[in-house]
Structure formats: structure tokens, C-alpha cells
């Protein structure tokens, strides 16, 4: 079965619906009319660009270019993690911790999946590597951002409590244990919920796409299960690593709570 071609004017029809939504939002004074249009324009532009990049990448297919693409994706995800935190570690730590923990978890799991499980030849074949890494990074990014945001916000709100526990002779790690556990949980819960609801409440996007592209549903399901597992593992380990590193950075070598290392972004 071949995929039915979509032409640009047909997409134009869909865009009219978005314009209609923006008009309603404007009339209802939601203050979102402009945002909807800008976001829609960004979708078109960014996806069109990535389409061009992917076509070029697929035709070259060398490890260098795949690695470069992966690096660019990682840095953009790192920037996004930083932008989603209301209170950030200063001095580049917010970006650094987010990016390094995403690198450690997403890249390890992606490479492992490619070499051991899927096994395309060569292992970095961009048709497999880039979409897989993209899904990994997208989800890990959400987990890491939620975890770090919850951590820094919790520490800021409960700084007196943490200090009181320090005064009683607790180690930094005991004093922050509750907040750290909370932060890890909030980073991981969305992906656990997504796993639990998959196929019942929601049909995952990747599987849907694969079926639309003509894959037999049984194969699409297997790929979806694999992807669900890998993004859960990537998100989980990424969140744990980021929250551990972030909480350590909030204390100095004398185990003092250093809220002066946080700055608030309005």
C-alpha cells in the first residue's frame, strides 16, 4: 500500500481551521490569538526545514553528519530544559546539568537500542537513528525539565526547613531527601502514565504514523513497545541523574545550603 500524497494546498485547508481557532481565541479575549498563529507558523517553518535537513542527511548517511545532527538536537534540548525552569542554577549549571544528564541517558539508550536490538546496517543509519534519538530526547527533556524545576522550586520554598534540618546535624543528602524524591517522581510520572494509557486512551503518534505509512499494525505495535520502553528508561535515568547532580550543586563543600546559586527568571 502506498501513502496518499499530501499537497501544499491541502495543508492550506487545514491551516484555515487554525486561523479560525485563532479568530475565536481573539474574540473571546483569551490573549492567545497571536500565539496560536505564531506557533503554527513556527511548526510549518521548523518542520519544512527539518524535512530538508533529513533528506540531505539520509542521502549522505555518514557517521559525521549523523553525529553532528545528534549534537545539535542535544544542545537545543539542553536550552529548552533551562528555559523551562523558573529558578535556575546560575553560572551555566542549569544548562550543563540538563544537557549532560540527557546525553548520558538518551544517547546510551539510543545507541544500545540501535546496536543490540534493531540492528540496522550500519548501526547509525539515519532513518533509524535520528527519529529514535528525537523521540528519546523529546521525552527525556520533559522529564529532566520537570524534575529540575520541581527541585529548585522546592528548595527555594523550603529553604528554612532544609537549613533547620542541617542545624540538627543532618547531612545535606538527608536534609534534601524529601524534596529530591518529589522532584524525581514528578519527572518520571508523565512517562509512566503514558505507558499505562498507551493504546487504551491514546494511540501513540509514532505507531499511528507507521500505520498511515503502510506498515502492518503488528509490526508498528512492536516498534511502539520498544520505543515506549526506551523512552521510559531514558527519561527515568535522565531525571535521576539531573536531580542528583542538581541537588548536589545546591550545597557547597561544607554542606551549606546555597540558595545564592539560584536565580529567578521572571
Amino acid at each position, binding site marked *: 500500500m502506498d501513502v496518499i500524497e499530501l499537497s501544499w494546498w491541502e495543508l492550506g485547508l487545514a491551516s484555515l481551521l487554525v486561523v479560525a481557532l485563532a479568530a475565536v481565541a481573539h474574540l473571546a479575549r483569551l490573549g492567545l490569538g497571536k500565539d496560536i498563529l505564531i506557533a503554527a507558523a513556527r511548526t510549518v517553518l521548523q518542520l519544512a526545514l527539518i524535512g530538508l535537513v533529513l533528506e540531505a542527511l539520509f542521502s549522505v548517511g555518514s557517521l559525521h553528519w549523523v553525529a553532528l545532527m545528534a549534537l545539535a538536537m542535544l544542545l537545543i534540548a539542553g536550552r529548552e530544559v533551562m528555559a523551562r525552569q523558573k529558578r535556575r542554577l546560575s553560572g551555566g549549571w542549569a544548562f550543563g546539568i540538563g544537557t549532560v544528564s540527557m546525553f548520558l541517558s538518551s544517547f546510551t539508550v539510543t545507541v544500545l537500542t540501535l546496536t543490540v536490538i534493531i540492528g540496522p546496517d550500519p548501526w547509525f543509519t539515519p532513518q533509524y537513528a535520528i527519529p529514535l534519538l528525537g523521540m528519546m530526547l523529546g521525552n527525556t527533556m520533559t522529564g529532566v525539565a520537570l524534575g529540575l524545576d520541581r527541585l529548585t522550586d522546592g528548595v527555594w520554598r523550603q529553604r*528554612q*526547613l532544609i*537549613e*533547620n*534540618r*542541617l*542545624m*540538627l*546535624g*543532618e*547531612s*545535606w543528602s538527608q536534609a534534601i531527601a*524529601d524534596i529530591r524524591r518529589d522532584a524525581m517522581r514528578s519527572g518520571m510520572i508523565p512517562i509512566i502514565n503514558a505507558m499505562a494509557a498507551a493504546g487504551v486512551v491514546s494511540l501513540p503518534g509514532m505507531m499511528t504514523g507507521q500505520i498511515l505509512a503502510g506498515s502492518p499494525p503488528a509490526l508498528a505495535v512492536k516498534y511502539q513497545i520498544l520505543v515506549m520502553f526506551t523512552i521510559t528508561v531514558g527519561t527515568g535515568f535522565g531525571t535521576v541523574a539531573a536531580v542528583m547532580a542538581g541537588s548536589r550543586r545546591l550545597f*557547597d563543600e*561544607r*554542606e*551549606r*545550603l546555597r540558595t545564592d546559586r539560584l536565580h529567578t527568571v521572571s
Partner: protein
Amino acid sequence: MPAKTPLRLHNLGIGSLHGVDLTVAPGEIVCLSGASGSGKSRLLRAVADLEPHDGEVTLGDLVQGRVPGHRWRAAVMLVPAESQWWAETVVAHFPPEHRLDLTPIGFDDAVMGWSVSRLSSGEKQRLALARAVARQPEALLLDEPTANLDADSIRRVETWLQELIRERRLPVLWVAHDQAQIERVGRRHFRLRNGTLEQA
């Protein structure tokens, strides 16, 4: 056994305070007073090593910068004016199997099962002192330990603390406002003024 060692502040500096030298003997209570904003609480925070500061603090052989922070603070324990509570029940804030008698400060054993949310500010303050001394510190830093208490409780808590301090031979820094209290509990009294300690 409880330590019988003096607490020494040498050339301590934090915020507007500088060059603070002070030795507190075992079992001695030294009172500190000063206008609000003069740095009393920050001085105690520096002694407890909760903020970066200058100078050196020792407790006998224990040197502030040479032991892990939690080890130092377990020995030199600060009880802040406003206590914080993280668990549901009172008992969760006490070390397991402590043997502290709370009757002198007006509680019986049932208090351990109380929920923290029903404690009054006065009860919180007395229990905050109790949970600190139950951890067997070797020196105490008390920041207005009776600020939220009524006249009757103030005298009880003072007597209880004085006895305990004498018995365990703890060096104590006691921040107080009330001149009468300072005369009752302190052998020596210093005022914080213009960034230094002045003996009163």
C-alpha cells in the same frame, strides 16, 4: 560522655561583623544582645557554619573547617528562633530511643504522638529545644529560645536549660533581648554594636 571543651571563636567575620574573638568555657552561658539587624543571628549561623564566613571556630580539638559540615553542626547545634517541622508527628523529629525527660518543660510522654499541626508557637519552641538537646550536642547556640513563651514557661525553660547546660558542661551562646533574662542566665554579656562585640 559529654564534652568538657571550650568553644572558641577566633577572628570571626560575617556581614558587617568582623574580628570577633570569644571563648566560651564548658558549662558557661554567654549572652549576646543587640539591635535587630546588628547580626546576632548571622553570628550564630557563622559559628554553626551555615554561611560562608571568615575566621576560625573550634570546639576543643574539633576544628570547624576540618570535619564534615554535618559532623560539626551535630556537635555545635543551633536552635533558630523560628523552628521548622517536616514530618506529621512530633516523634519523627526526635532521634530514635532518646531518653530526654520532658516534664520540666511541661510535657508528658503523650506529646510524642501529637500532630505537629496542632502545636502552638510556644509548644513548638519548647519542643524545638528538646529535639535539639535530645541529639546530644556538645555546644548550643540559642537564638532567642524563649521569644514565644509566656512568663511562666520562660522561667521553667530557663531553669531546665541552665541545669542541663551545667550537667552536660556545654558551652552556650544565648541571644536574648530581655535584660532581666540576661541577668538571670548569663555570666557574661556582650552587645553587638558597630560590627564588633562590646562587653556589657
